[in-house]
């Protein structure tokens, strides 16, 4: 696995000026950590290319990979 590095799950930041303290705390600390197919950031170290992976966190199976444009297309969670 040394060629790729994990960048964490894709998460949407709430507007810090508009959200409540509870929403902000939830965003900062809490995670979706029940095993499932999750959308994650990964980086190919050799080329410095960041991309998006849908990975099953129970079986470690990669279901799909995408360019970051998939997030801009409004498909992000």
């Amino acid at each position, binding site marked *: 696995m040394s060629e790729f590095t994990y960048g964490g799950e894709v998460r949407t930041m709430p507007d810090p000026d508009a959200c409540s303290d509870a929403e902000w*705390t939830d965003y900062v600390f809490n995670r979706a950590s*029940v095993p499932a197919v*999750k959308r994650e950031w990964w980086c190919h170290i050799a080329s410095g290319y960041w991309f998006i992976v849908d990975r099953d966190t129970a079986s470690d199976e990669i279901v799909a990979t995408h360019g970051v444009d998939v997030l801009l297309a409004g498909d992000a969670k």
Partner: protein
Amino acid sequence: MFRQPEKLKDSYEVVIIGGGGHGLAAAYYLARDHGIRDVAVLEKGYIGGGNTGRNTTIIRSNYLTAEGVRFYDESVRLWQDLAQDFDLNLFYSTRGHFTLAHTDAAMRTSRWRAEVNKHLGIASEVVDAAQVKRMIPMIDLSCGGHAPIVGALYHGPGAIARHDAVAWGYGRGADRRGVEIHQNTEVTGIDLRDGAVAGVQTPRGPVRTRKLLCAVAGSTPRILAMIGLRCPIYIHPLQAMVSEPLKPWLDPIIVSGSLHVYVSQSARGELVMGASLDPYELHSTRSTLDFAESLSSHMLDLFPFLSEVKINRQWAGMADITPDFAPIMGTTPCEGFFLDAGWGTWGFKATPVCGKTMSHTVASGIDHPLITGFAWSRFARFELTGEKGAASVGH
């Protein structure tokens, strides 16, 4: 060793999810110290089959925060007379514990930890490279030339113990006092009434209870999801391996943060070795060749004479990882639901004190004073505990 009750009762005063060391210790102290014997421990596999039987059995208290040091030191004290308490040989063996420093920065951290430890009355000191060599004659101080050892933090009370026996001892002690231990009994759902715990669902039928303790390293997020709570825990695999048995040559326990190695020699002569967490979230106990190769290579940096020694077994456990490397313990936003979680890579040594403090918390409904620094609510207050001495590697 203990009874295997055929049927679950309709209700219990306390139900504990997880028959590992922590859950069984809590059951034991509930029965022994608090007179609460109407307790069921529900274990989805067999007792001690989770992280209790998968860790590398190191016991120490030279942590970095006052909260951590006080808590683990109480645990070390409890460990020392457990074998008497259980009438069972735990192979508790005080070995001394070296945290090797390969850089000036690591020496600075060692001094910091030693001063915090000494201030709180813990035996802990910084030693130089020559003293490391005197106490571990087989070590290559140059580490093959790429990570020379500058010195170490030495913690005399560092110890190892036989981990399965800890689960058996607590289990037997609890069983003799009336606690029921149900193996092969997975909790599949939690019933709430008006936001408070009312019972659990199992494949063997429902059980009513108003007090539920969750002590399920690696499965914590799944249990919390049953009551609709999100938590700051990620699951990462932690791998370990043992060598073939060798004649005794390594007395102390050795940790190197820079080389990502910890190692001790068991009573059977095997070298018990671990490294850092796997680098990404995964709910699996699979092993990797990557791990065995890199750990072996770092072992050879420290002890080149081991090059012909074979690896016998390799395995993994699932670790709850919190953002501040401190556990999450005590009461929760859900009434009647008590949590002993977030134990990452450092839960085994804390088994007795977790049992003690969680039994107090479950019996009284109020967090024990030793665990207030580990409260669920610390995240909402943005008051993290910052236990950088927790994981022995990777800082």
